């Protein structure tokens, strides 16, 4: 490996061999999407979070070069090709036939002060001539990069009509292998969705650093951070996030959160502070409930090992078509006060606890409950109570619309 290459790679991956890269080259591929219209403003905030590198198009790189001044500034990566492949129907002029062409030469990138260049490698195109042209482009870059000491980051992607719902992961692995064989110095790879298959992909790369890419941004910050955590678990070397960061409410903060997972090895749950320590309660937003009952299914599976929505410690009122509403234990304590044997008491999370041997199955609590969320277990002959899942209520965790939320009570 050329000395220049080694030096530049160290600029990106640093001491621990890991990297948080922010991609902001969307303008070339997608047009003026949210977050990249005023790129200077966005990137100024991104840089406050301390990314290891930022990926830009050549045009943006020259006009924003001052952002990369200084010793602590992020490394500059330059996108060296263009494709229309991502322009689906949500964009003006959706792509009809996929094309990918180079836009700069390696010496242009050098002149821009780039620390590395990034190019696509598509696998799954119907047109094999186009596939061959794509391979040729990557190999020309590879030879040139070798000469000039410029790191080549290849972005292998399953793309086109030969991609099926079955061959996706294998196409990722295939294109990763081909990219490695063509001489890539690092890879920017789509996350395969779970750590098990991604681990295989990382192994396929044979030691070349694998950065996972994000794609669309998640509904919540936590969705995106979970991906980062799993990528690191699977042996990835870091992440390339674009929309997940440039479209975040606070891009700098988002970079910091991602950094703490990539460089400090923290978990997503830890980083967003989802695990509550003290007393909690559940708060319901009926307007957000879509009536899917996933909360109830999950509740029964977590507590009983099988799925029975009628056995959940909550219920979903279906009032089609006017609406639906989750009904949960609100910790009113009426059950505790009517229990004739004192079998019920407050638990540490603010939940109601049953001392089984004191229970006479008198049903007073079941009948009293104003929410009607105490289920009677006929096999064990005891009432079942919401235990707030030991501080991480699963109904709230799984709810897709935040209709059930966790509220921290003052200790």
């Amino acid at each position: 490996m050329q000395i220049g290459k080694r030096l530049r790679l160290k600029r990106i991956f640093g001491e621990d061999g890991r990297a948080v890269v922010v991609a902001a080259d969307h303008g070339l591929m997608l047009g003026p999407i949210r977050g990249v219209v005023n790129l200077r403003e966005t990137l100024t905030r991104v840089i406050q979070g301390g990314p290891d590198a930022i990926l830009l198009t050549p045009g943006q790189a020259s006009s924003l070069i001052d952002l990369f001044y200084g010793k602590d500034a992020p490394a500059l990566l330059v996108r060296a090709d263009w494709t229309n492949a991502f322009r689906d129907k949500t964009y003006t002029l959706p792509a009809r036939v996929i094309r990918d062409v180079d836009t700069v030469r390696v010496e242009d990138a050098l002149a821009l002060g780039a620390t590395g260049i990034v190019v696509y490698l598509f696998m799954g195109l119907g047109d094999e001539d186009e596939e061959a042209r794509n391979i040729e482009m990557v190999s020309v870059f590879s030879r040139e990069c070798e000469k000039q000491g410029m790191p080549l980051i290849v972005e292998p992607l399953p793309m086109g009509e030969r991609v099926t719902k079955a061959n996706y992961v294998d196409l990722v692995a295939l294109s990763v292998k081909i990219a490695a064989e063509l001489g890539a110095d690092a890879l920017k790879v789509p996350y395969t969705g779970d750590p098990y298959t991604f681990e295989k992909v990382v192994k396929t790369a044979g030691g070349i650093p694998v950065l996972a890419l994000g794609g669309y941004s998640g509904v919540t910050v936590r969705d995106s951070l979970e991906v980062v955590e799993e990528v690191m678990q699977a042996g990835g070397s870091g992440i390339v996030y674009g929309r997940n960061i440039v479209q975040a409410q606070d891009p700098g903060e988002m970079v910091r959160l991602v950094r703490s997972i990539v460089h400090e090895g923290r978990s997503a749950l830890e980083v967003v502070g989802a695990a509550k320590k003290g007393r909690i309660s559940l708060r319901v937003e009926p307007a957000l409930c879509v009536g899917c009952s996933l909360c109830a299914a999950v509740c029964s599976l977590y507590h009983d090992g099988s799925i029975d929505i009628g056995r959940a410690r909550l219920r979903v009122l279906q009032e089609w078509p006017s609406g639906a509403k989750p009904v949960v234990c609100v910790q009113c304590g009426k059950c505790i006060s009517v229990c004739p044997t004192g079998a019920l008491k407050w638990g540490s999370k603010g939940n109601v606890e049953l001392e089984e041997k004191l229970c006479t199955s008198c049903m007073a609590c079941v009948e009293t409950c104003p929410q009607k969320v105490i289920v009677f277990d006929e096999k064990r002959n005891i009432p079942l109570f919401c235990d707030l899942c030991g501080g991480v209520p699963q109904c709230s965790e799984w709810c897709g619309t935040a209709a059930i939320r966790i509220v921290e009570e003052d200790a």
Partner: protein
Amino acid sequence: MLKMKGGYTGRVLSFDLSLEKAKVGDLNEKEAFLLLGGKGLGALLLYRSLRGKEDPLSPENPLIVSTGPLTGTIAPTGTKFSVLTKSPQTGVFLDSNCGGMFGVQLKRAGYDMLIVKGAAEEPSMLIVDENGAELRPCRLWGVTTFETIAELKKEFPNRGILVIGPAGERLAPISGLLTDDARSAGRGGSGAVMGSKRLKAIVAGGRRPIEVYDAEGMKRAAWVVRRMLRLHEVTARSLPRHGTVNIIEAVNEMGALPTRNFQKGRFDGAGELSGEKWRSGLWRRDKGCYGCTIRCGKIAVLNGSWVDGPDYETIWAFGPNCGIKDTKTIAMANYLCDDYGLDTISTGVTISFLMELYEKGFIQDLDGLKPMWGDEDVFLKLVEKACKGEGCGRMIEQGVARVSGKFPGSEAFAMHVKGLEMPAYEPRAAKGMGLGYATSDRGACHLRGYTAGQELLGYGGGVDPYTIEGKARLVIDRQDEKAVIDSSGLCFFAFYAITLKELHRMIVACTGLPYKDWYELMRIGERIYNLTRLFNIREGLTRKDDTLPSRFLKEPMPEGPGKGQVVELEQMLSEYYRLRGWNEKGEPKKETLDSLGLNELLKTNE
């Protein structure tokens, strides 16, 4: 020996309405392994229940409700069930995939599948629970669906309910079924089959838990799916916010939004019918089926009452297809069709056909009404007549193919394949869709072979919509994927974000069935497509039935991006047969069936 350890209930309930007898049988594990459930297992049962050429409205034709192993579990979008029968509209295989709570409730009653045979003597309803099934007289015959559901809900508040409307009762070939949460198994006339059995409603529910083989594995696998749905633009934003109609402007832009009975592919009023227009207009709430956070379902308010908001296909069938751009008119027509139990696509396409008949001078009027493009009043009156079966409504409810039979010379623009009306994508502007319509096992269907995502919407990088090269492979892949998805209990829409890999992981964790990898799931899809092909061949279908209305084959697209295009169907079809391992006549070769284990499966009857 295979052993299912979860997901399935393992039991199949059959009920003979003529004998009023229930029988509970075991699900065959080997068959479950080969065909998964839902559509696949239902297709096998249907194949075995019939010999071919029976009248679909005779008592012999079974009505099958079939769930998948993931229906009612924590698998996100695990809501689906399939209704299978021989279609009175097409005379061939019919499966209709439906969401809502009914499938979940059938499993809670303790059954993976329900087979209803025979016919009741008087209007009845079937009550299914853990103890089997009971037939009761139903005094709601003649009552519309929503009122029927409201009445039955009083008696059965926590059950799933599947009903037919007056259209199904009077055996209208384009009638469907409706669930208590207003999801419909609309297409192909399952309503008439249920009507012919004098069965007004099926009520199901119980307290049987669904076991899970590897609860921890299932939670992890389902969590990954949940997150992937939240990380994909379509499932995280487009569908939740704008429903299925989110694509209407894009499809229009591509010149593929069939307008005025497929005369052209662009509609001036498409912008009036966009997701944003509906969202800021009539829609009030989002509705998720069981286990679904995508929530493409929308609830609208119309004239002060809550109604189910129409989806893309319905909006198209009543809207651009009939030249109408008024959301209220479309929502009203949708409500009427649901209430009387008519399929919205078939109703819209039959009316647009009548409008073209009128335009071309085949008819002078319909009960004094002049069916002109875009005339909202006349359109609504026609819908109402079709719903109520009054006057010319008796003709509309027959569907396009039968109406066209009365007007020689109208075949070229009678928009159906095998008797099932065409849905909302212009095949000349997306030729894979054309091949998909021609080869779909139940007749023209947009979902069985959904290439529009790639041809028109650019998902996965996009494919040239006008070329025929590679389209056979593309259609086969999409058909096989869809068949296995429809057998799993999951919703097709989840697969914008996930792949068969995630499905595989959930199925294995939930059931313990030893599928090696997700390619095995693709083979299930292929097996199902060959099985339904055999069913249709037994009914007498041949290559000439795998066709399109001649408008698409001979009339060049008049305008738009696809100007001048026709569908070169025969070339694609030959390649399709070859890749499927079928002969030139479209019959599966022996070696194809052998390699899929189908010969063996069909030899051992029962």
